[in-house]
């Protein structure tokens, strides 16, 4: 009995130590609810150390779809919201969940497809025409289907093209950008993605950019401080310091300086 219980004690001790380690408080930290596109592209890995060095504030990022990020922020589970769905962001502020919304940076959406180009849309720069052609061709299209910023944008483009996408060719993956790209590439489907995720994506297969360059495919990112009036736990000063830095010359220069393979991923456009 003693041997068994002493090993139990040892286990309990390890467990208690583990728990104690978990309770270690971060001195100054904020929580940012953000999108997978900014996190998966490596932007934060590049950006945050600079801000952390300058301010001493640790930035923790939860990367989920824009829809879920907004929901989490509405539940007060975050100090700053950094997403890309302007209409939803403005609604978030109008309903009192956010203080103000600022334009931060942009890039654009693109449609990628297999080299064989079964829909014959490669090289097009009119997205509505391309979507129409795609829907008639019967070639597969993989959609996020997850209420993310990218999904909202995709739906608005189908609507603008006057098409109700449905049928066997239209495959809603219900998952993040990377997972949708993996699935789409696996089944030879066209996929709409933000350019940053695409450039940094590691499993491109024989896929190429098929449709790009339409002003309609502009992708604006915004940043919002979660409203301390609604959420008293919001770290107002530190969250605002992060936003101020992002919008400052230093922050904007840092965003513009992030490159992968010589390509700029995000274009700063704070006013």
């Amino acid at each position, binding site marked *: 009995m003693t041997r068994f219980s002493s090993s139990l004690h040892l286990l309990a001790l390890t467990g208690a130590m583990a728990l104690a380690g*978990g309770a270690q408080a971060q001195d100054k930290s904020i929580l940012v609810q953000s999108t997978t596109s900014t996190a998966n592209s490596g932007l934060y890995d590049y950006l945050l150390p600079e801000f952390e060095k300058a301010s001493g504030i640790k930035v923790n990022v939860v*990367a989920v779809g824009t829809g879920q990020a907004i929901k989490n922020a509405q539940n007060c589970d975050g100090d700053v919201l950094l997403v890309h769905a302007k209409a939803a962001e403005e609604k978030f502020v109008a309903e009192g969940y956010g203080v103000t919304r600022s334009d931060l940076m942009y890039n654009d959406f693109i449609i990628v497809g297999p080299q064989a180009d079964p829909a014959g849309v490669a090289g097009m720069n009119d997205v509505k025409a391309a979507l129409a052609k795609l829907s008639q061709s019967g070639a597969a299209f993989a959609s996020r289907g997850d209420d993310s910023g990218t999904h909202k944008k995709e739906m608005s483009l189908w609507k603008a093209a006057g098409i109700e996408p449905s049928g066997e060719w239209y495959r809603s993956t219900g998952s993040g950008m*990377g997972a949708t790209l993996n699935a789409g590439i696996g089944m030879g489907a066209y996929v709409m993605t933000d350019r940053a995720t695409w450039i940094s994506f*590691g499993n491109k297969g024989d896929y190429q950019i098929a449709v790009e360059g339409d002003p309609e495919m502009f992708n604006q990112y915004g940043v919002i401080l979660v409203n301390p009036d609604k959420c008293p736990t919001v770290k107002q000063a530190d969250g605002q310091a992060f936003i101020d830095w992002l919008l400052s010359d230093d922050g904007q220069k840092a965003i513009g300086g992030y490159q992968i393979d010589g390509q700029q991923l995000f274009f700063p456009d704070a006013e």
Partner: protein
Amino acid sequence: MQDFARAFADSFRQILALDAGFVEIVGLSLRVSLTATLLSCLIGLLLGAWLAVARFSGRQALIILVNAMMGLPPVVVGLFVYLNLSRAGPFGWLGLLYTPTAMILAQTILITPIVAALSRQVLEDLHGEYGEHFASLGLGRMGQVRAILWDGRYSLITVALAAFGRSVAEVGAVIIVGGNIEHLTRVMTTAIALETSKGNLQLAMALGMVLLVIALAVNGLVSSLRLSASRLGYA
């Protein structure tokens, strides 16, 4: 195939290059899942022993319920814990969401039914075997529980390992309540999910292999402890 092997070797080099960050991720995985296993054993063994020995109406229904809860989807457990720990939820004031503690809590909920259900079966079998013996010794219920817990210790260690395996391998719960935050709540499985979504499939696969090796190491350690303990016991 050679390309594949080379890609794999490259991935392992990448993993080694992650050095400090990688050690941190492995350490947190072990810390979270071992703590959850420990807590689930404390609760689950008690519950299992009670269900094995006690006789009351509704016992069978409770056993079926506990058995069924072994099939709890991690995502559902994650959501349940998220809704409770969210600032908008009943325990939001604790400020535990997106911390390792929240991950431990979620995994504990996930694996406690496994410990309870499997240990109940082990202990009930033992109890059936020794029931008359216990009666002749005039052992009280607590004494009986202690005796069968001790007697079934090796099977129960396997139960604990099953629970540990489930917790260290799951991603659905910890990604929701932990948020996969770098340097804070990133564990092996959420790192694998992240690398997959970045399209770094080889790196993700290599991380999976590492996870398997870690599980092997934990199992090997436990079974060598067990072996040496049983040798001592019979010496």
